C-alpha cells in the first residue's frame, strides 16, 4: 500500500575529549547534523532531509545516536554525516565525528543490530583490557546485568543483553 517509508541511521559519536559526553543532547546533535546538511547540500538538501527528521534515540554514555529521515533523502543525510566536525553547546565546542554503524528501515532492525554490536564491542573491550582489575570489573558488570533485576530499567534492552 502507499505509506511514508523512513530510514533510521544508527551512528556513534566518537570524541577524544571526555567532556564531550556531557553535551551530547538531542537538540545539539540535531542542530549540528542539520547545519552540516545545509553546508553540504544547500537549502534544497536541508528542506528535503528536514521533512521527517528527528533524533529518535540518544545514549550519552555510549554515544549511540539514532536518526530518522525519509527514504527519499537518506542518501543526502548519510553523505553529510562525515561533515559534522564538532558539537556545540553552552558556548563550548568539542571536536568529534560520527561513525555510521547501520541504516535500517525500522527501529526494531536497528535495535537488533545494536544489541549484536554491543555484544561484540563488550567482548572486544574485554580482550583489550590491560590489567587484571579492569578485567574483573568488566566481567562483574557483565554477569550482573539482567533483565529482571530492576524493573525500572527493563526498557534499556539496547544496552545490556538480558540473559548473559
Amino acid at each position: 500500500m502507499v505509506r511514508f517509508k523512513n530510514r533510521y541511521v544508527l551512528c556513534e559519536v566518537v570524541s577524544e575529549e571526555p567532556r564531550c559526553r556531557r553535551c551530547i543532547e538531542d537538540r545539539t546533535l540535531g542542530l549540528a547534523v542539520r547545519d552540516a546538511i545545509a553546508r553540504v547540500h544547500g537549502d534544497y538538501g536541508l528542506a528535503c532531509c528536514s521533512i521527517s527528521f528527528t533524533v529518535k534515540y540518544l545514549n550519552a554514555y555510549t554515544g549511540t545516536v539514532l536518526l530518522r529521515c525519509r527514504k527519499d533523502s537518506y542518501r543526502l543525510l548519510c553523505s553529510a554525516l562525515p561533515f559534522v566536525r564538532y558539537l556545540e553547546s553552552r558556548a563550548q565546542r568539542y571536536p568529534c565525528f560520527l561513525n555510521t554503524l547501520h541504516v535500517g528501515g525500522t527501529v526494531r532492525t536497528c535495535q537488533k543490530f545494536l544489541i549484536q554490536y554491543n555484544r561484540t564491542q563488550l567482548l572486544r573491550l574485554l580482550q583489550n583490557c590491560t590489567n587484571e582489575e579492569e578485567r574483573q570489573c568488566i566481567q562483574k558488570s557483565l554477569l550482573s546485568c539482567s533483565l529482571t533485576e530492576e524493573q525500572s530499567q527493563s526498557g534499556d534492552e539496547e544496552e545490556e543483553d538480558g540473559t548473559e
Partner: protein
Amino acid sequence: AAAFERRVLRCAAEHHYLRVRLELPDGGARPNAAQFKQLVVTALRELHGEVGAALPVDVLTYEEKTLSAILRVISSGLVKLWSALTLLGFYQNRRCAFRVLQTSPFLLALSGNSRELVL
C-alpha cells in the same frame, strides 16, 4: 539466424548547453566574465550546497554588453543548475534575474533561434 543487439541510449550526450541572459534592471556596473562565473557558482552553492558548487559548469562565451552567456554543464547536473539560476535573486545586493533563452544537448542547436526568426 543472425544475432542482433539492440542498444537504447537515453540522453546520450554528456553535456547540456544553456544560453542565458542576466537581467540587471538598475544601470550599475556590469560583471565581467570571472564575476559572472562566480555568480553562477554562488547560486549553485546557495541552493545545492558545496556539492552543487562543485558541479562542473563552464562559461563558454560571455558578452558583457548584453550580459548573455552560453553555459555548459554535465547532463546529470542540468536540473540543479537550472533551478539554481531560477532562484537567484540578488547580485551584490542588486535585484537580478536569469532568463534561460535556449537549451540543448547540442551546441550547434544554440546558433539558430526559431523564436527570433523573421520570416
